[in-house]
């Protein structure tokens, strides 16, 4: 959406108070703090020691193409847990990401999905090229602090052996192999090494 002083009211309605990504500013996430007919101000908090808070001011007389789109549903790894990002089709006049139109759920070791507060680092964890575990590495990680592992954009594995597609519990990894709902075989089998016996039910 091209934003300038002619449509600043729309820009305010759609973006003020939301998170966006600015193409020229890498993987950093900004909040749109204030939109007026003259300027649009954005800021991004410090990400720790040695990193200053970043600020951007868009001159609305010149305008800027703010083309950030809320991402599609995906699982990604954020520290010790897998996180699921999905769109909530509510409050839809907001084009940027906010707490009412985007939901982040984290998966704990027991297989519970819990809402996670939207915060800049959480969103940046997604923006920074999501990473995925192999089953082998996840098992090693479970011996340490890892609670759940994102295996693909939709499949996760917990320390307790629970296998999920999105938030649906579809399988259980245990000593005797992987017990899982048979219909998901083509989605799950390629992820698990041949040494793990598949037990469709």
């Amino acid at each position, binding site marked *: 959406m091209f934003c300038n002083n002619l449509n600043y009211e729309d820009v305010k309605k759609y973006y003020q108070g939301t998170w966006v990504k600015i193409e020229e500013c890498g993987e950093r996430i900004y909040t749109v703090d204030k939109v007026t007919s003259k300027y649009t101000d954005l800021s991004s908090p410090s990400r720790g020691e040695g990193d200053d808070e970043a600020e951007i001011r868009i001159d609305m007389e010149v305008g800027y193409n703010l083309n950030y789109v809320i991402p599609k549903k995906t699982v990604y790894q954020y520290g010790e847990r897998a996180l699921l990002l999905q769109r909530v089709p509510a409050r839809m006049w907001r084009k940027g990401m906010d707490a009412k139109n985007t939901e982040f759920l984290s998966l704990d070791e027991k297989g519970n999905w819990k809402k996670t507060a939207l915060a800049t680092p959480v969103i940046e964890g997604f923006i920074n090229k999501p990473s995925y575990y192999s089953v082998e*590495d996840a098992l090693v990680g479970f011996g340490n602090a890892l609670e759940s592992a994102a295996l693909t954009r939709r499949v996760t594995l917990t320390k307790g052996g629970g296998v999920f*597609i999105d938030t649906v519990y579809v399988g259980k990894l245990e000593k005797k192999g992987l017990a899982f709902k048979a219909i998901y075989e083509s989605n799950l089998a390629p992820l698990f090494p041949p040494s793990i016996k598949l037990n469709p039910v």
Partner: protein
Amino acid sequence: MTIATHYDLYLNDYIPHLSKDFYCGCEFEIESCKKIPDSLKKRLIVDVDHSLRNNGHEFKTYPCTFEQALDHFKFLHETLVVGDEPFSERTSIHVHVNVAQFELEQLRQMVLTYALLEPLFFNFVGELRKESIFCVPLNYTYMPSIYKASLDKMVEKWHKYTAFNLLPIKAQPDAPGLGTVEFRHLYGTGDITVFKSWLTAIKQLYTWFVDNPTWNVLEKIEAGMSPHTIAFLIVPELTKGLGVSTVNEMCADTTLDVKLSVGGLSDGVKKPATPRTRKEPKLGELVAMQQQMQAAMAQQATPIPAGSWVTSDF
């Protein structure tokens, strides 16, 4: 039991009693309306739409047939006087389809089949519409996790701004029950060719379920029927110019969505042992599994290095 009976719907006189023929109601959003002739006001319901700009209006048809909808569209654009940019990104066309005489399971199957073929509907209207905040693809949301539910439960959890809107089938706190499902995908346009093609695709989907009331999409997927074959059978209008592999790739993600209508391990089968409740992992067990896998991998040509990450861009 039909939708009309189940939801105790008041049926209007525009649709013949118990008819299963295709009837729809269309909403055309147009900005920059300069002059709205009386003849148009007599034929269509004309409302000011405050979500639109520059004297934007919504023009709604009464329940009508496929041919009548096309006539209304032509008449609207022949008589309405508009200024510059009548079809901004804010405008769209919504099509309500009467499903009042569908059985509950028949409509549930229509929802699942739509869910499978959703990428084709968005392919028709263009990628930009996926980004619209007023017609969110089901595939982007939590909706697939409720596909296993009954139609009643689905409606409870549905949201009006999804591209395929199930809510109008029954009365809502702020709206009467219409006995319709709504397709919200199409952008605002005055091009009859585009509208006709879009309405054709929707009619094809509807008609399939009238002609095949016991169709079960999950059974077909389980039997190995590909998304392309299903699409070609049901909505051939949307497969024009698309190859087999293209359609199958487009619908790979939504195929998984539809599979989720089966539910998970705890649905209908004995649930395996509950996830561990102890805080500490069974390290010995994990290490043993890891060693077992490493031994198996060592026999393969290309072992995966320990600690490696599999990354993916999208």
